């Protein structure tokens, strides 16, 4: 199907089904129950799942295949976002031009950054990308170009939002007092249909499904790249770049292409972020945001197809769900216990939720790195093996297990 072999096609179909039924899957607990706290099926978070999934898929094309660790990918996401918001301010609130332009602009910028940074490899490459990203962050945060030319380019700390009185040459003038809203040919991104089944409530959001379609396309592209001769070249760069050079092949164009492609993925994610929530702030370019995508990719499994999507989902889930569990909620949970005991449990649990959700993330990240270096994908495989009681391929004969050449 679509030029994929059976295994990949199955994976794509599974991801598509998961994306389609996400509003059900992510809302397993009835409204009003104590567990409803853990429901993730509301539009904002579902959109974030797929958008950051795209971001991580793109990052994986660079990091997972070539092994080049970029610490500046959030900059491309930010550039894409700014490009998208300017399209919405100048052209139209329709999301299509915004998304296309964000991909193109991010591609151009990543070409420039990659052109320079890829002269070095290893840690020097990482530092170069980090430096570029922080430079761009500073430019955006203090709106240096805007000040230079006496206008506004990034809006500095306040960021940019579509205003009522923006030109928007393709759109008809807004009605008096109306707020500009992002839409796809009239279908507003915020439009949702709520389906109540018993005490459950499922939300189907237009913006989410548009982002999910983009994610599926991005995922399909990524599979094709992984399986192509180009992907094979990238893998050979990862396993031994020197050998590639000695064979008479110049690896630079390949790595640069991978860098630009992953930059465009980041731009697409940035554009979609703006399409779903029409606002840009410079913080999304900060180096911690770049670090986040590294964590997502490694958490899920670098170099695997589905890993980055899982990793980004897990991280975003924790950021949005764990951080909202406050002491009051905990008190509710443990109220059935005797006083002393409930205080104890609240104190312990409180260490890992609410504003301390970073601790939980850190612990999970460490456990994954130490025990399942292959990330969630490897964890899944191991559990699968345990369940099916499949005999582990014996490594002593040296032939059964195929390990990468690293």
């Amino acid at each position: 199907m679509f030029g994929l072999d059976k295994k990949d096609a199955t994976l794509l179909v599974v991801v598509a089904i998961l994306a389609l039924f996400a509003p059900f899957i992510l809302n397993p607990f009835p409204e009003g129950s104590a567990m409803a706290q853990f429901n993730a099926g509301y539009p904002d978070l579902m959109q974030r799942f797929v958008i950051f999934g795209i971001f991580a898929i793109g990052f994986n094309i660079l990091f997972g295949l070539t092994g080049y660790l970029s610490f500046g990918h959030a900059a491309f996401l930010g550039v894409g976002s700014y490009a998208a918001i300017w399209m919405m301010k100048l052209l139209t609130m329709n999301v299509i031009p915004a998304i296309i332009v964000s991909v193109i602009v991010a591609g151009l910028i990543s070409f420039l950054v990659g052109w320079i940074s890829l002269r070095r490899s290893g840690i020097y490459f990482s530092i170069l990308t980090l430096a570029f990203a922080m430079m761009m962050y500073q430019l955006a945060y203090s709106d240096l170009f805007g000040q230079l030319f006496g206008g506004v380019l990034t809006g500095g700390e306040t960021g940019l939002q579509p205003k009522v009185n923006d030109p928007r040459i393709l759109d008809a003038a807004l009605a008096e007092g109306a707020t500009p809203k992002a839409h796809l040919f009239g279908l507003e991104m915020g439009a949702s249909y709520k389906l109540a089944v018993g005490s459950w409530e499922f939300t189907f959001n237009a913006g989410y499904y548009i982002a999910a379609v983009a994610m599926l396309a991005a995922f399909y592209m990524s599979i094709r790249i992984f399986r192509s001769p180009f992907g094979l070249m990238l893998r050979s760069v990862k396993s031994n770049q020197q050998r590639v050079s000695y064979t008479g092949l110049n690896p630079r164009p390949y790595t640069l292409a991978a860098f630009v492609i992953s930059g465009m993925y980041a731009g697409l994610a940035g554009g979609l972020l703006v399409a779903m929530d029409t606002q840009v702030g410079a913080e999304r370019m900060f180096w911690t945001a770049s670090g986040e995508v590294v964590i997502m990719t490694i958490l899920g499994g670098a170099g695997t197809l589905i890993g980055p999507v899982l990793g980004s989902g897990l991280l975003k889930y924790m950021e949005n769900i764990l951080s909202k569990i406050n002491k009051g909620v905990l008190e509710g949970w443990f109220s059935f216990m005797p006083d002393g005991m409930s205080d104890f449990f609240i104190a312990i649990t409180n260490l890992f939720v609410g504003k301390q959700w970073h601790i939980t993330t850190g612990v999970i990240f460490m456990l994954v790195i130490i025990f399942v270096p292959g990330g969630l994908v490897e964890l899944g495989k191991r559990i699968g093996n345990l369940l099916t009681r499949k005999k582990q391929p014996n490594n002593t004969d040296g032939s059964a297990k195929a390990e990468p050449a690293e």
Partner: protein
Amino acid sequence: MTKTNMSRRGVLKSGAVAGAGLAVPTIFTAQSAAAYTNEPTGSSVTLGFNVPQTGPYADEGADELRAYQLAVEHLNGTGADNGMLETFSSKALQGNGILGKKVEYVTGDTQTKSDAARASARSMIEKDGAVMITGGSSSGVAVAVQALCQEAGVIFMAGLTHSNDTTGKDKKANGFRHFFNSYMSGAALAPILANNYGTDRKAYHLTADYNWGYTTEEAVKTSTEAMGWETVAAVRTPLTQTDFSSYIAPVLQSGADVLVLNHYGGNMVNSLTNAVQFGLRDKLVNNKNFEIVVPLYSRLMAKGAGANVKGIYGSTNWHWSLQDEGSQAFVRSFGTKYGFPPSQAAHTCYVQTLLYADAVQRAGSFNPCAVAEALEDFEFDGMGNGKTLYRGADHQCFKDVLVVKGKENPTSEFDLLEIVEVTPTAQVTYDASIFGGELGACNPGT
């Protein structure tokens, strides 16, 4: 080659199906029963408290959250006392929730980042059904969340945000601010500075390199220059800077005799400490004592800077040592619950919550448009700032501004600032149109 068999009936059928499919989203959006976003239908109503729990303003955020919890207790009538409800000039609230509905709340972490703040606010609106969002400890976040609330159709009651933009060029019909702003700081400070330091001073500005810094610098510059001061230089410092020595050194060479620190939070603590360590305040320049001014003061900052704040002028929205009934009632119930006096951030958040609840009660509805109408041009008293007006034209509160000075002989670790003057409202009032921006129309959502 593929052969297609299209029958007239088949085309019509699939056309009808596709058309229905395209029409579905519009039908569904129009179908929603609620009159406005998150209309509370049960016996309770949910408010969203969106404050920084991590990052540079986490202290302020923690204090804001305490104030919100206190406000909820007072609204539900479950607290040890009724706090400012006793002194508030409007007596609509009964202590049985809002419109008889029990007040519940959800909290979120803004991380002082506009993206994170919006994500958190969106989850409150979409998942928890919050009908009002409040909080924030920086103007970038306030502007971002205010725009979101406008789009989503809920009310936003701004927390600590001092930039002119929040109710200036970025004002929104669904957003309201009780806190004062840079312009008011400048207007209140200038006369006091002229009285104490004379009218022929040369000022040197160090400004935090972001939106709030710019508007504060602008406001202080304009109002002091009107008094006859001269601005020698205005230097931008990165927000993440922690050591300001390299910025302090050139100050003396410039011939300036006043240093204005347009810094807030940790920035101000560090820059002031550096300046004092350099011995600036012991210097004589142009035969005048060298002086330092901090336009926006808070008790938490004074605590951080310790003895360095002694004798330094600044402005503040509210201070716990105020002697009016409202302030005392608030300080008493906050102190009883938490064991220390509240900060100005806590005060403004507490007041905002009560004001919202009161507006709902008076309007008889949670509908954002009705609430906005009740708040617009609402005059009240007994909330710690004397007579206050919620101006309808830009949704900004107009009230007295406090000019404070670091205390020479503090009696406790909380008693760090003394009130020099209460600048009357008339002196800090400005025309609503000077900052540009458009309020737009209120949006009830759905």
